[in-house]
């Protein structure tokens, strides 16, 4: 009997510290496929490609039956389409959850608190140098509908203070797999008009308002 208990305890420790540690996967997608950078997509009446996609996920909180069971220790996590390891957030702990809540972007307190390391290092290219503030969501590429030079579009969505606050919160029922459905942005946004957004302004806020629709539970 004693042996069983001991075995059971060992097994539990093993489990919580490896296989069962909670992780959330954020998978950037374009229509049904996983996003491939620089691939040509034929989408509606547009021919487009995405050359760069990065976004911050912050203040990730886990819920079970609508009460908080865990808050991620990592303040802000950078998802970068060039590095699939960045799609996963690990918690080093096991717990049960049925819902998560997180922010897309970096909160205002972090934005005014000086320099940070790791995912928040400005060297990651997600910080505006000429005007303080993190870029919450960055998508770049070309689109045949875009009138700019070489059809290039730049959506650098940031801004932490009203009226140009672009931080958005998402709540999702999920088992841990979340897809970021980037094609939806092209459905919602008139790329022939909004193709160069590189500072906090009305257009940035309008695009930020669409973010919540991109994040879905993968079935």
């Amino acid at each position: 009997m004693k042996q069983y208990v001991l075995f059971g305890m060992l097994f539990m420790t093993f489990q919580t510290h490896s296989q069962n540690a909670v992780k959330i996967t954020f998978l950037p997608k374009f229509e049904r496929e996983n996003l491939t950078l620089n691939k040509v997509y034929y989408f509606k009446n547009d021919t487009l490609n995405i050359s760069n996609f990065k976004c911050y996920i912050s203040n990730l909180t886990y819920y079970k039956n609508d009460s908080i069971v865990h808050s991620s220790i990592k303040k802000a996590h950078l998802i970068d389409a060039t590095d699939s390891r960045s799609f996963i957030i690990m918690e080093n702990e096991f717990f049960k959850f049925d819902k998560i809540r997180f922010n897309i972007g970096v909160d205002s307190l972090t934005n005014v608190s000086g320099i940070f390391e790791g995912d928040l290092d400005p060297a990651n290219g997600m910080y505006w140098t000429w005007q303080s503030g993190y870029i919450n969501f960055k998508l770049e590429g070309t689109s045949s509908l875009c009138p700019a030079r070489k059809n290039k579009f730049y959506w650098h969505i940031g801004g932490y203070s009203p009226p140009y606050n672009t931080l958005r919160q998402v709540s999702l029922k999920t088992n841990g797999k979340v897809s970021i459905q980037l094609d939806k942005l092209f459905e919602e946004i008139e790329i022939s008009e909004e193709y160069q957004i590189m500072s906090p302004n009305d257009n940035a806020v309008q695009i930020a308002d669409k973010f919540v629709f991109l994040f879905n539970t993968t079935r």
Partner: protein
Amino acid sequence: MILSFVLKKDNLFFSPPDYFPKTVYNFEQNPLDSNKIELGRILFYDPILSKDNTISCASCHSPFNAFAHTDHDLSHGIFDSIGNRNAPALFNLAWQKTFMWDGAINHLDMQALAPISHPSEMGSNINEVIKKLNESKAYKKLFLNAFQDSTISTSKILKALSQFQLTLVSSNTKYDKVKMGKETFTEQEKNGYQLYKNNCASCHSEPFFSNYNFENNGLPIDQTLNDMGRYVITQNENDKRKFKVPSLRNLSFTYPYMHDGRFMTLKEVINHYTSGIEYSETLSLQFNESIELSSNEKVDLISFLLTLNDKDFVFNKKHQFKKIADQAKE
């Protein structure tokens, strides 16, 4: 015991007079340390921070000009490109809420990213800078001494630059000595002080001679630049033509004046306030009534402004050029 030691150590680098308020900068996040300050000082003077190794921070912020720039009205950067604003003086930065003429930067630590990345200033980027510094044995040693870790990172570079700049405290002017009871004003300076209090103090408030807020002091727009100041950042109509109030300390060293360096002398500045104010929607209310000063009063006001020069600060050897090689040999 430990606490008193720490305080004493800090005081060596940073000991503002007691009539200076609490700092805005949070020193707990970046406690001053002599090795970090020295590293910041060396970086400040090293053109390695620019793309073609020609421009250092000090190229535009010279110690002998209270860290402003006096040759040009608009600052010059790499490849001789001309920026669109006059380089401001650098001192008492620990008390500033925002940085740049339009307050574009919200924290001193983040400021250096702007000139390093600006195409018409240093034209580089932080990754390039980290790479170049990593190739230098001398720098690796300096980072190791300062941070007990030789990995060179954005945060270490920025924190060291902040440390040096935080030690740039101007608090030893005649005005300060009068304030501490060590000297007295002449009659003329006393008159000037009163005129300053009546006409200028609401924006250029003591003891920094700035409230560091954004105001429109009635400068006619320079059509070639069309600089809207704070509006560029906030897009708020009420912020059009507003600029951050500059300090009046060290004016003898920091000409030309205003965000675009349009005035060479204090006389021109005073004449602007008495007869050059241009009305616009956002003009600061103080100018609803015009400022009237006789020619004697103008002289008195200027004589007071000159008591705000801080020679000890401007000629402080600890703030001056230090070469990387000097340090490496030590």
